[in-house]
């Protein structure tokens, strides 16, 4: 019978597992250790509405302070500095230690650093934490010209925010299209056009080689082709690396993240791991690490359920969303390895869906301003029911109607 559970990491995953444990009836101790100053909060609004001042600090919090007291979740300000597996304890920075019967690592990820001269100049920012968002939001009030390095989700969400404030925005991306890791070519290209039509300058296959400054503040950025862009603000979003140091130093298996099995258990039976920091086995035997709210939440629930005695493998359908200006993209499933695509709706109306197939099986749907297709896709993928590309290509094919018909 578990009596002491420690969760290291008070982000989306850490918060969820603490909550789900109580929800599932676990009455023992829960210690939730976080290394940020605020109460646990959600990150997605930071690059969207929060940056525009439309979301308050309070609205970012998962729950107000009294929630933790009411549910007997002990919030501890970390960081944790070591896992003492022999004695089943977590060591904290102040030298104190907390014991566990079971440990859950939800340490998340950190931004890859920008490896160019000038990256330490004032006005150059990564965007991951509330602290980052506050600093950038303040800068946005006076900035005239922003450079964004990386046309991934964070970069483009930020670009849309800056553009909506009338700031000139120039995005540099090493790949040949935006959000190349996650999106089909079709959807990538649509977003490139859409951002350009809103006045964002997008430069693909372009490398940043240095940032220039004066009196310690950024004044410009220089590209590999020699062009110099004036800038008083630079935000980079070039990917994240999983926070594995604690786990690695404690001797746990690491492979692009803390390695866990299908039940999200590490090689130590008293230690589970969830969220951005974790690498887990996918359906085809490949190792996956997902960076999303859905993954953190669903993995947290899987662990909580296991710890109260109802183990089940993690097999949730991945889903994801990004809001870039007035463009809402929702993705169900994962598109890696797609070999054919069918588009429903009309690109020119900025409301369409791209159905992605592999060997005639639907593996993902990217829905742009088409929430109905997104939800239908989540249901279909969950039930492993798929139209064929031929069916989906028929005039008038309606994914929502198909999902209803297949119930």
């Amino acid at each position, binding site marked *: 019978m578990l009596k002491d559970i420690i969760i290291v990491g008070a982000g989306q995953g850490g918060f969820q597992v603490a909550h789900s444990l109580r929800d599932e009836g676990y009455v023992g101790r829960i210690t939730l250790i976080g290394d940020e100053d605020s109460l646990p909060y959600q990150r997605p609004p930071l690059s969207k509405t929060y940056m525009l001042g439309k979301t308050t600090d309070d609205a970012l919090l998962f729950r107000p302070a009294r929630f933790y007291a009411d549910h007997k979740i002990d919030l501890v300000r970390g960081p944790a500095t070591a896992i003492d597996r022999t004695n089943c304890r977590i060591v904290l920075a102040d030298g104190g230690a907390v014991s566990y019967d079971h440990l859950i690592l939800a340490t998340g990820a950190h931004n890859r650093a920008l490896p160019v001269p000038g990256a330490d100049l004032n006005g150059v920012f990564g965007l991951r934490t509330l602290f980052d968002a506050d600093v950038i939001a303040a800068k946005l009030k006076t900035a005239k010209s922003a450079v964004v390095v990386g046309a991934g989700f964070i970069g483009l969400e930020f670009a849309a925010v800056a553009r909506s404030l009338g700031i000139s925005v120039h995005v540099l991306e090493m790949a040949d299209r935006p959000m190349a890791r996650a999106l089909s070519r079709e959807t990538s290209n649509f977003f490139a056009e859409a951002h350009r039509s809103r006045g964002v300058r997008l430069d693909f296959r372009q490398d940043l080689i240095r940032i220039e400054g004066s009196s310690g503040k950024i004044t410009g950025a220089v590209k590999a082709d020699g062009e110099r862009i004036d800038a008083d603000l630079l935000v980079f979003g070039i990917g994240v690396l999983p926070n594995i140091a604690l786990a690695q130093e404690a001797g746990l298996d690491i492979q692009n993240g803390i390695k866990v099995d299908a039940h999200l258990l590490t090689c130590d039976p008293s230690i589970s791991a969830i969220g951005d920091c974790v690498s887990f086995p996918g359906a085809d035997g490949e190792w996956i690490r997902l960076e999303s709210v859905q993954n953190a939440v669903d993995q947290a629930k899987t662990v909580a359920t296991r710890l109260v005695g109802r183990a089940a493998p993690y097999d949730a359908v991945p889903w994801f969303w990004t809001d870039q200006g007035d463009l809402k993209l929702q993705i169900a499933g994962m598109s890696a390895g797609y070999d054919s695509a069918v588009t429903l709706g009309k690109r020119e109306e900025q409301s369409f869906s791209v159905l992605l197939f592999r060997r005639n099986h639907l593996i993902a749907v990217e829905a742009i*301003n088409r*929430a109905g297709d997104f939800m239908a896709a989540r249901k279909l993928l969950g039930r492993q029911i798929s139209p064929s590309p031929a069916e989906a290509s028929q005039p008038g094919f309606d994914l929502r109607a198909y999902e209803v018909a297949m119930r």
Partner: protein
Amino acid sequence: MKVSIYDETGELVQINERAPTTLMQAIRDAGLDIVAQCGGSASCGTCHVYVNDAWCDKLKPPNESEAAMLDFVEERRENSRLSCQIELSEDIDGLTVTLAPGSLF
């Protein structure tokens, strides 16, 4: 403005909210445990509430995104809405809703 929320047991919780904010936020502030997984982006359907009949017509109707999501919420009814899409304002002072299944933790 006052917002009244019935939870799953029929308990009534009332809260005074300062606009501008959303109904979803008011429900959170009232100490109720609403899932609202996507944090207000009309992408998950788990902030679903039933709006008391007297109030349905006083709210702005759902936009396309919300309307599409409502087709997929658990136990959809005529008076179903996504609370993250309802902006609170003085002219709906007294708004009364009930938490729907699927939105409760």
